[in-house]
């Protein structure tokens, strides 16, 4: 089940898991994405950073088509996301997304939260789904919370449960939209540890984060967004030695 892939060797031979080409997106008169392009290869961790309003969350949400783009092209796991005839549910079976506000279903136990989609979308049997729930919960260190309700968990535990819920669908790529922004430093740490373990397992990931130290440690590639454009991109090293004054200023204030 666990694919431990070496990002560097696979990247050259396979088409990217996520690719954005010249993506434009406006909300009314506000231009949010102004010709954004980037690619994520299999097993790679791409971190999107930038100020609030720079378009990084919108770019992430476009990948799972929570926002429709005005022009350009997005291809995710061979799904042409920008195609109006896109099979949306097929795309979303391949893409897992975790939000800032966890969004666990409050009326369901953690187990029911996790088994809901595999059972109703993939037609997995209840018994199989429960076994998978146990496995993914163990992966995020919450196997004892199976029969608890979300409100009985701390914020960090809820976020880890939300990650487990996404993992149970066995996605090919995971999107993380500021998943630690609602958490205190201690709880942030436990969530980031889970994400690090996923990266070590070879999961392809795109994440929006304000945790610069974490980004430096985990990113294969960093995309710095500024005013709707990819202002600077490169390996994690650009965070310590930025080429543009905007990124220098951003990491300067961000640390």
């Amino acid at each position: 089940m666990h694919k431990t892939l070496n990002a560097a060797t696979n990247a050259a031979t396979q088409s990217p898991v996520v690719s954005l080409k010249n993506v434009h997106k406006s909300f009314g008169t506000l231009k949010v994405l102004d010709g954004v392009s980037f690619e994520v290869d299999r097993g790679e961790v791409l971190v999107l950073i930038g100020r609030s309003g720079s378009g990084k969350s919108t770019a992430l949400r476009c990948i799972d088509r929570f926002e429709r783009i005005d022009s350009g092209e997005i291809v995710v796991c061979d799904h042409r996301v920008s195609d109006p005839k896109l099979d949306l549910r097929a795309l979303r079976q391949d893409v897992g997304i975790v939000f800032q506000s966890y969004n666990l279903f409050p009326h369901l136990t953690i187990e029911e939260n996790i088994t809901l989609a595999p059972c109703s979308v993939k037609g997995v049997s209840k018994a199989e789904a429960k076994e998978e729930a146990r496995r993914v919960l163990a992966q995020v260190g919450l196997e004892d919370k199976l029969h608890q309700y979300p409100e009985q968990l701390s914020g960090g535990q809820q976020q880890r449960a939300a990650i487990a819920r996404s993992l149970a669908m066995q996605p090919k790529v995971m999107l993380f939209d500021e998943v630690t922004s609602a958490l205190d430093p201690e709880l942030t740490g436990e969530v980031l540890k889970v994400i690090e373990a996923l990266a070590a397992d070879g999961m392809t990931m795109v994440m929006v984060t304000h945790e610069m130290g974490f980004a430096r440690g985990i990113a294969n590639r960093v995309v710095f967004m500024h005013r709707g454009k990819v202002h600077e991109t490169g390996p994690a090293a650009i965070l310590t030695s930025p080429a543009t004054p905007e990124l220098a200023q951003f990491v300067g204030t961000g640390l």
Partner: protein
Amino acid sequence: MNLNLDFASIIERWPTFFDGALLTLQLAFIATMLGTAIGVLGAIGRRSHHPIVSRICGIYVEAIRNTPLLVQIFLVYFGLASLGLKFSAFVVAAAALTINVGAYTTEIIRAGFDSIPRGQIEAAEGLALSRAQIYWHVVMWPAIEKVYPSLTSQFVLLMLASSVTSQISAEELTAVANYVQSDTYRAFETYILVALVYIVLSLIMRAGFWLLGLVIFPRRRRLGTPL
């Protein structure tokens, strides 16, 4: 002032009252079940992006909420009759009460649907659930749990309002009382008794809804906290 109450002649008619009360409960039960179904569909319809669907549901809700129940009952009663359709008073009463409570239920359930945060729906969409699955698993059950107290009060009100169907001679509790009092000339005693029976019916319904809530909302049963 000379108050002379005689309950004996009323109480000896208890089988009649019992039948009336049973019919009242049956009317309430049918209208509650069908009204809930209409309410769920109506709420989905009112929130539909299809303008004609949401308009039709809106007109239904407003038409019912702005006319008296008795007039609605007569409209169904004489409407069916003028179409040449012959139904018993019970069927007409059940239909009218269902149409009536369906409109109120639509509004209550719609409020519940609207209270589900957008993030819940996005999370479900992100998990590739279909629209119908999202409505069923993520929107409807928590929505109903949130509005359950308003919903059950509405159904108890409906049971009390069913007394109006005595006007078309449905043999429910109030109609039965009307016969008894005209027979015995003990009007005050009759309606005191009937009022007490309605109180008992209300308590029975509230207890029933409380028990039902324990069954259909396991989270609430275990944690006891509102959603």
